[in-house]
């Protein structure tokens, strides 16, 4: 069970190998933190784990199903278990509320019900001031918050967050960390970050990641010292 990446190789068209024979497992109930230098393929790995990119070689298993061998219908169903939040989040046109409800709409939930659920969720988490803003008017931090809330509300089995705290102020950071802890009960969460404070605070498992190896770090301070 879990989200397993096995012997993954990946390169962009015409480029060098970004990932070389990388394997890693993610399970529910844990927070995994990936740290590593720039441009070593952390985002690419998350997009492969997020079932967005197909690896050139290797397999992606989600709850023991080899994802890229499933038919289109099964893929659509299995995809709903994994949600990825980009480091530069993209919002669709419309209000923040509509954006946060968008994942429900993609899952076929009736629009009115999706909007009501989204509003209740956002108010419950203390972000009501965002709700009626238009996505075009948001600051970078608000955009990132909206994208995170849009992912959190879906409560996926596996949640992949790429640099989720880059633009978020300390107050909201605390709220987001609390939501991540809540979600951990039901989800496996993977966070790629350069922020060692976040890594140490949130990570049950911390991995140092490079193109061709994933190394588990037992004690972050000891490692850097």
């Amino acid at each position: 069970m879990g989200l397993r990446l096995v012997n993954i190789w990946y390169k962009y068209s015409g480029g060098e190998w970004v990932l070389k024979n990388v394997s890693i497992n993610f399970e529910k109930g844990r927070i995994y933190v990936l740290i590593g230098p720039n441009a070593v393929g952390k985002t690419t790995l998350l997009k492969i784990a997020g079932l967005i990119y197909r690896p050139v070689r290797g397999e992606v298993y989600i709850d023991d199903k080899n994802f890229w061998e499933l038919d289109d219908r099964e893929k659509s169903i299995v995809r709903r278990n994994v949600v990825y939040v980009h480091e530069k989040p993209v919002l669709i046109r419309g209000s923040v509320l509509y954006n946060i409800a968008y994942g429900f709409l993609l899952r076929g939930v009736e629009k009115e019900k999706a909007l009501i659920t989204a509003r209740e969720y956002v108010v419950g988490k203390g972000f009501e001031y965002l709700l009626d803003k238009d996505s075009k008017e948001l600051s970078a931090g608000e955009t990132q918050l909206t994208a995170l809330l849009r992912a959190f509300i879906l409560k996926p089995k596996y949640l992949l967050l790429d640099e989720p705290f880059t633009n978020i102020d300390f107050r909201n950071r605390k709220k987001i960390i609390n939501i991540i802890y809540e979600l951990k009960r039901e989800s496996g969460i993977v966070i790629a970050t350069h922020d060692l404070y976040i890594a140490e605070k949130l990570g049950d498992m911390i991995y140092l990641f490079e193109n061709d190896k994933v190394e588990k770090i037992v004690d972050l301070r000891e490692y850097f010292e």
Partner: protein
Amino acid sequence: MYEFIDVVFRSLWISGSATLLASLWSIPLAYYIAYTGRFKNFLIPVFDALIGVPTILIGLLIYMVFCNHCILGIVDILYTPYAIIIGESILITPLITTISYRVLEKNIKTYGELVLSLGGSEKQVVDTVLHESLTGLIATMTMGFSRAIGELGIALIVGGNIKGYTRVITTAIALLVSRGELEEAVFLGLILVLIVVIISFISRYARKIVWG
């Protein structure tokens, strides 16, 4: 005056039809190239080059396809508005395809990943990309329409400038100039410019209605 109004309305429906027809195949083609990446290094530069092709040349080619003893002569549409529609739709196909491609290529990457990252299906990727690209596609179609309504060569060669039947604004201007009736020609020319400007404003307004 009645003749002027008749010419203006004919120009509008002929060029409007040509724009819709060209969009019917150009936008799906642009989506296919942008989504799959196939043939993009060949087709996009070729279409880029064809944007500036002289309208008289396309008119000649259409004539050579639809003339009496030509390959599609049996269809018998030469010197009808339909021949102009076909010619103009071919004329603006490269323009609509390349600009739509640029709009869609960026959005497929951006919104395609977004939809998949939220657990959406491939079909929902298409829906979202087209939805988010709508304003860009409307602007592209407006440009296509402006190019179509302002062309002369095709309308002259395959339309024949027949009064009350295939005469459009540009062919009417050419006729008026050849007769030395410059004032009327300038008046029609101003109407042509006015139409293009009004259509552009309507398009902007439509985009605002769509997205606020």
